[in-house]
């Protein structure tokens, strides 16, 4: 009951505008699915766009949400004196934003499967493992956002790094594709292509490294004095 109440308050606290982006992405997919071909986009192109939205758009939303967690809380001083640890509150907030984004990603996936677009997606796996197409990069960028937010204590700086990494992996995808080691870490291996037998190892590597990034963030998030100090601005 208490937990439900807290989740509900966290959703209200985030505000409707902050929760708007993931459903907007769903609408964009619906629009492309419905009208893409009629607008003159070739089938292959539309399929590629749909995968781009799923594999790159969803992680960007979650990553920026994670990067914005620290540094913008107006009631941080009060929060840090409450017996429920602030770390738990931050993770709940992250859960609201990332959970909502993941839910929207699931809706997009279901829509693509039902309409048959999923079969046309380049390099996409089928079945449950196929969901790693968005889940792995989403969790990786979220963990990165969390770590840089905790380390730098500045939402502006953390979002700058997350945005940079996102853009970097998009613009220089070929660098990742050319190097067998880097291929394992490429967030957008589905969109930009990889050898079929390397796709799953890539997804699992992302999940494992996301775990490492989150583990590095954990002690930083628990340091009240650090969090209270905030960014020197």
């Amino acid at each position, binding site marked *: 009951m208490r937990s439900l109440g807290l989740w509900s308050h966290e959703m209200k606290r985030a*505000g409707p*505008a*902050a929760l*708007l*982006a993931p459903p907007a992405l769903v609408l964009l997919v619906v629009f492309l699915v419905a009208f893409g071909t009629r607008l003159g*986009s070739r089938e292959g*192109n539309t399929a590629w*766009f749909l995968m781009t939205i799923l594999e790159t*758009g969803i992680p*960007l*939303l979650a990553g*920026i*949400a994670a990067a*914005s967690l620290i540094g*913008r809380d*107006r009631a941080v001083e009060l929060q840090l004196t409450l017996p429920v640890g602030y770390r738990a509150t931050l993770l709940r907030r992250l859960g609201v934003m990332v959970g909502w984004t993941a839910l929207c990603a699931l809706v997009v996936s279901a829509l693509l499967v039902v309409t048959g677009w999923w079969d046309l997606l380049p390099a996409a796996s089928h079945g449950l493992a196929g969901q790693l197409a968005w889940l792995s990069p989403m969790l990786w960028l979220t963990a990165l956002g969390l770590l840089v937010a905790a380390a*730098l204590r*500045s*939402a*502006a*700086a953390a*979002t*700058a*790094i997350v*945005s*940079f990494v*996102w*853009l*970097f992996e*998009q*613009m*220089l995808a070929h*660098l990742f594709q050319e190097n067998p080691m880097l291929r394992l870490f490429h967030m957008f291996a589905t969109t930009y292509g990889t050898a079929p037998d390397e796709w799953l190892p890539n997804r699992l590597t992302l999940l494992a490294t996301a775990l490492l990034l989150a583990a590095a963030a954990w002690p930083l998030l628990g340091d009240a004095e650090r969090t209270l100090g905030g*960014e*020197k*601005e």
Partner: protein
Amino acid sequence: MIATFRYEFLMQIRRPVLWIVYGLTFAVIVVTFGQPYAELSMGAGVDRHDPTTAMIVSADLLMLLLPIVYGCLLADRLIRDRRLGVVGVLDATPTGHTSRLIGKYLGTCAATAVPFALAYFGRAVAYAITEGEPSALGWAVAVFVTTTVPALLFVGALALAGPLLMPPMLFQVLFVVYWFWGNLIPPRMMPTLADSILSPNSRYVAYGLFGYRPAQQPPDVLVAPDYYTYGPVSEAALNFLRPEAGVAVALLWIGVMLVLAVSVLSLARLHAIRTES
């Protein structure tokens, strides 16, 4: 306005995260673009010994990804006053709202552009020494002032004003998507503002004012038989926004960037007036 400029400049340039984030991202760029950055030549046949071309390539490399860092670091500056509750105090000062906005805009943009400029001019100095081309420094200034500064003025206005009009988090997402879609996506791929007169990352000044020509003809440019240029892209939408490059169009692009910056700032001011009333 000068006092606001000075204050905002110092406040921003003293932020340790400004230097940390720029340092990290710049290091990644240098490591990634190892060869092209060392030689300042992108693509086969670019004459790296020509200082103008080298300085244009150097600016291009930085303009690809660093504006994202620049914009994100600016995005919390206007809303910060509201968060810290100092708007009332500032309102009580004799400086007018518009002067304060301009001072804040110029001060924070200038400070946030300092690491950018250091990276750029640092490379120019290194080039001038290693190539024995002191004229590169003059070209670096000319290229920076005519291509980078107008672009950063527009991006800065956008990044400052955006979070006033929508939640900062939503703005950050839209800003990244805008930079990717509106500046980096190849125009033939989808309708985009990239390479258009509205794009801060377009090369109108490089082609129009500095006579930049990649040695090999770009494959997707609609060209006249005897020369190639920058402008309409074959099979791309929105080509009416891509006039053929020339001196007049280069100057027009600079003007468009400045007008866009002023328009965005005016929007921010109007929004503030509406909120105040």
